[in-house]
Every structure is written in C-alpha cells, then in structure tokens.
C-alpha cells in the first residue's frame, strides 16, 4: 500500500481550473518530482498536500490517514521554500529548534536533535548566526535542517534550489538526496528544471495543464515519452512528421526521406505519425565510414559549443533542419559550418509518438 496517496485531486482558482483529476501514489521513502512548465499546477498540488490549499474535490492520504481537510499544522509535514523562509528573528539553532519546541519535545532532546541536524547539513559552527549572516546555500541548508528536525512524515520541496547559483544548486541537490535517502523520508519535489528532476528522483511526474501527462522513472520518461508534450519538454528533440508506408516492416515516409524502423507499427498504411529523434541519437558519419541503413544527407548550418557537448544544426537535403549533439572529445573531428555532412542513427532509437 502506498504511503502518500493523491486521488482525483481538482482545484480551480475562480473559473480557472489549475489541477484536474490528479492521481499519484508514493511509496514510503520514495523521492518523486513534479516537473512541468510554469502554470502547470505542480505547486498547487504540493500546496494541497501541505494543507495550504483546499482541494475542490479528491482526497489526500498520508500513511493511511485522510488529511484532505486537516489543518496544515496537524499534518506533520516538513517543507522547504524557494525563498528559504527562515525566521529572521531567530538564530540558525533557533530556526531548527522551532518545530521541536512546537511539538513539545524536552529541551535536552531538542538541543541534541538540533546539533545532529546541523551536523548533518554541515552548519554546526553556524548555530549562533542569524539568517542574514548566511549565504543563500547556507540558508537553504538551515531550511532543510529545520524541515527534517521534527521527523516529518512527508518532506515537501517547493523549488528550493531555484534561487541559488548553478554550482551550489548541483552540490545541494546531491546533499538533499543523500539526506533524504539516509532518513528514508518520502519526498515530493516541485521543479521546472528537468535536470534536477531527472538526477534526484526515483520517479518523475510530468505535468501539463493541471494533469499528470506521464509518471515514471527518469530514464523511462526520457527514452519512452508518452506524449508529444513530454517528448518536447524533456531534453532537446527533433520531431519529424511521417506517413506510414508499410506498417509490417515499419517503413515510413518522412521529411528526411524514407526510413525503415524495423518494427511493426500499430498504425495502418497512410496514417500520420510523428517520429521523435533525440539529438544525441544522431551521429555524423566520417567519409571513410561504410554506408549504414539510415543515412540523412545535409549541410552543416551552425555549431554551438555547450561544454561537454557540441550542438550542430544540419539543413537536410529535403529542406528540414535537425539538431545533432556530439560529445566534445579531444581529437573529435567536427565539420565546419557550410560543409556537407552525412548523419545516421540506429532505427531502434527513433520514438514513435501518437
């Protein structure tokens, strides 16, 4: 039985529905991310779990207890906010101790727990400082310690890394995940950053228009997107419209020429489908390479240096543009813009979207 169950959640602000028929089941100790663009309803779902918003309909259960109408302060949840939300009038230790004091834990036990939490987030030396004396990353660590100190049943993270700079963001997401694993707290994480969601989560919920478009493990979502929106939202993508020519052999007519996908297609002859090709699935052929089954000819329009990756834009002979990602390895020969290129890809890496 799942630990956190959201069933048929709906929420509207005025006449505007923001969450529609949202279902989710989370196991104890699981880390699930709600991922989606601004306005997709992910924060509203989190706020309903926290008790800051009341669902229009549907139910929320934590550990078998129906908390749908329970006040936020009675839900035993821990929460981290984008703006840290540390109490400015309290020291670091005071902030971490707040939830423990509220729950009436004995002073000695509370002090021990505060020390333990601050050591866990590496801020034991800063216990007497005030929030304004800390950096953004340190403040968010204090917020994490404060949220987990009372041992909540569920940890809710509302874009806690968005206000931090890139390097600290990467470090802190690793720390949050390690602490979450160590304590085994069921965690619901809201983010619009797909890299964060993919790197931290056991499962990702991709949301769009108030609905869960797809729920699955990060690799499943990336490699097998259930819809065009998920495919486009997660990572870069080439979308190629196609007509089914032979469903049995998987031959399709596309703007890149005829392609054989080596699999039986569910659609009949003449049906319109969309092929999704990840930029990293495409490979630039060297002149000496033998000609494989799929070859796409074109001319390199531009190349973009992205650090570990070099992104190429290739204008194909059929008049469409495809994006290709090459690893930036020393000695790799990257063609010059304007030169003729031949691309290939394994047929099994082509995803068929309905």
């Amino acid at each position, binding site marked *: 039985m799942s630990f956190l169950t959201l069933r048929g959640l709906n929420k509207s602000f005025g006449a505007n529905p923001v969450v529609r028929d949202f279902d989710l089941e989370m196991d104890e100790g699981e880390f699930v991310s709600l991922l989606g663009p601004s306005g997709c309803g992910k924060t509203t779902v989190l706020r309903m779990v*926290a*008790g800051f918003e009341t669902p229009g309909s549907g139910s929320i259960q934590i550990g078998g207890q129906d908390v749908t109408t329970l006040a936020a*302060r009675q839900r035993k949840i821990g*929460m981290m906010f984008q703006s840290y*939300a540390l109490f400015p*009038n309290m020291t670091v230790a005071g902030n971490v101790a707040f939830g423990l004091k509220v729950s009436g834990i004995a002073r000695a036990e509370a002090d021990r727990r505060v020390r333990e939490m601050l050591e866990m987030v590496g801020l034991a030396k800063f216990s007497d400082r*005030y929030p304004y004396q800390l950096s953004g990353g340190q403040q968010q660590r204090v917020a994490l310690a*404060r949220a987990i100190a009372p041992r909540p049943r569920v940890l809710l993270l509302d874009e806690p890394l968005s206000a931090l700079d890139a390097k600290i963001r990467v470090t802190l997401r690793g720390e949050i995940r390690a602490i979450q694993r160590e304590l085994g707290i069921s965690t619901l994480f809201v983010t619009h950053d797909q890299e964060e969601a993919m790197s931290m989560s056991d499962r990702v919920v991709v949301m769009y228009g108030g609905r869960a478009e797809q729920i699955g493990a990060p690799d499943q979502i990336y490699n097998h997107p259930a819809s065009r929106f998920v495919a486009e939202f997660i990572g870069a993508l080439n979308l190629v419209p196609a007509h089914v020519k032979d469903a049995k052999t998987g031959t399709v007519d596309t703007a890149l020429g005829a392609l054989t996908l080596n699999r039986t297609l569910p659609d009949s002859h003449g049906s319109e489908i969309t092929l999704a090709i990840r930029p990293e699935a495409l490979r630039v052929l060297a002149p000496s390479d033998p000609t494989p089954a799929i070859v796409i000819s074109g001319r390199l329009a531009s190349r973009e240096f992205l650090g570990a990756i070099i992104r190429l834009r290739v204008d194909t002979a059929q008049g469409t543009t495809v994006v290709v990602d090459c690893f930036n390895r020393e000695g790799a020969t990257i063609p010059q813009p304007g030169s003729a290129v031949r691309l290939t890809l394994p047929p099994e890496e082509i995803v068929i979207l309905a």
Partner: protein
Amino acid sequence: MKPRLGSILIVCAAALYFLVPLIAAFQFSLQMRRGTWSFDAYASVFQSDVFLNALGYSLIASAIAIVVGALLVVPTAYWVRLRLPHLRPVVEFISLLPLIIPSVVLVFGQIRMFGSSSFLPLTTTDFGTNLLLVVGYVVLSLPYMFRAVDSGMAAIDIATLTEAAESLGASRARILFTIIFPNIRAAIVSGAFLTFSICLGEFAIASLLNRNAFGPYLVQLGQDRAYEPAALAIMSFALTWVLMALMQAFAHMKPGQRLLPRFTRSRP
C-alpha cells in the same frame, strides 16, 4: 553631484525658520532670574507636583494606549495582509479617519455615548473616564500605528513565514507572537514613539474628559506663567528628538544586535 546654490539657500532659510524661534524660546527660558541666565525655569517645572502628576498620568495612559493599539493593529494588519488583501484599502481608510475627524468630535461622541444619562455611564467613574481617554488615544494613534505596522509587514514575506511556521506545527497565536511581532518590532516601536508623542501633547480629549493629563497642564501653565512654558516647550522638543533618534536606531537594528553595547565588568 554638487549641491546647487539655490538648494543650499532653501535649506538655510528653512533651518533659520525652524531654529530662530527655538533659540529664542530657549534663551527666554533661561531668563527667569533677572540679570543672569539660569535653569531656574526648568527647576521650577520639575519641582512642581502638578507637573510630575500630569506627566506621570500621561506616560501611563500613553503606554497603555500603545500596548492596546499594538494588540489591536498588528493582528488586524496581519490578517488583512494574509487572508483579506482585498479589504486593505477599506481598513486603511478607516485607520485614516482620525486624521479627518477632529478629536473634539470624537470626545463629544464619547461623552454622548457614555455620559451619565447613557446606558453605560463610563464618565461617572474615574476608571471609566480613564478608559475613555485611553480609547481616545488608541483611536488618535491608529493612522500612525497602522501605517508603521503595515509597512513593517510589507518588508517581510509574512505569507511564506506563516506557511513555514504552520508546516512546523505552529498555531496562529504562536506565529503571531513568536514570528510576526518580533520581526516587525522596529515598525511597532516607530508606531509606539509616534503614539507617545501625540498622546503626550493631546489636549482636547483630556481636557473635555477633565483628566489631569500633560496636554491640559501645558495649556494651563501657558496662561499662568511666563518662563516655565518656554522651558517645557524646549523639553518637549528634546524629548521628540530623542524619540526620533531611537526610532531610527530601532529601524536600522538587525536581529541579535543590541541598541547599546553590553557592559561587562572587567576581572581583576
């Protein structure tokens, strides 16, 4: 950027307009003893029992008005900002009414409502009349207290702080007293000092309720004496400046900072 000559002249003219009467009043207050300058007028004021009683009475009434005002305004402003933001203009307008309606109207209203022939004859007892005076002071201080507290709340993200505290299990009362009040302390102190200044010099309500407050005492003294009113005016100005300096100090104080350094006894 260099200040222009015109600006300097305007500032100098304004300073003279303000300072010359003050210097003149100060000089006059020192001339009680003939032929020499002295602080006799100040000594005379402080030796008067009536002065001390009036000042003491006004200080206590102001302090109670400040506490009642803060307890009334802070939860109201907090709730309006948190849950009823659409009602903020209405509450703001109500808080400004004491600036539009003269205090004479307020006190006449009080006397009519709570006079000897009313259903609740508060004016017939000392306690009741004192209560009416404090209520009057609270009403007079509303525009200043509400503005100060509301700006203080605008400076902190009360909605997120409230949610953070709620997620940790805190009740609304606990949030109000352990998070909201301490974080708008500077704003409350500013409002308190303004309330204090207004209550100390208030005449109409105290006089018509026949209270032995500082305002009526000042007016009475001005009619009876020559030098003491000047000395009192100078002392009032000094008190106002001290309060303004304290307001500034509190406004710029960060959590954990002390207004004065802690004095520790050195070990031998």
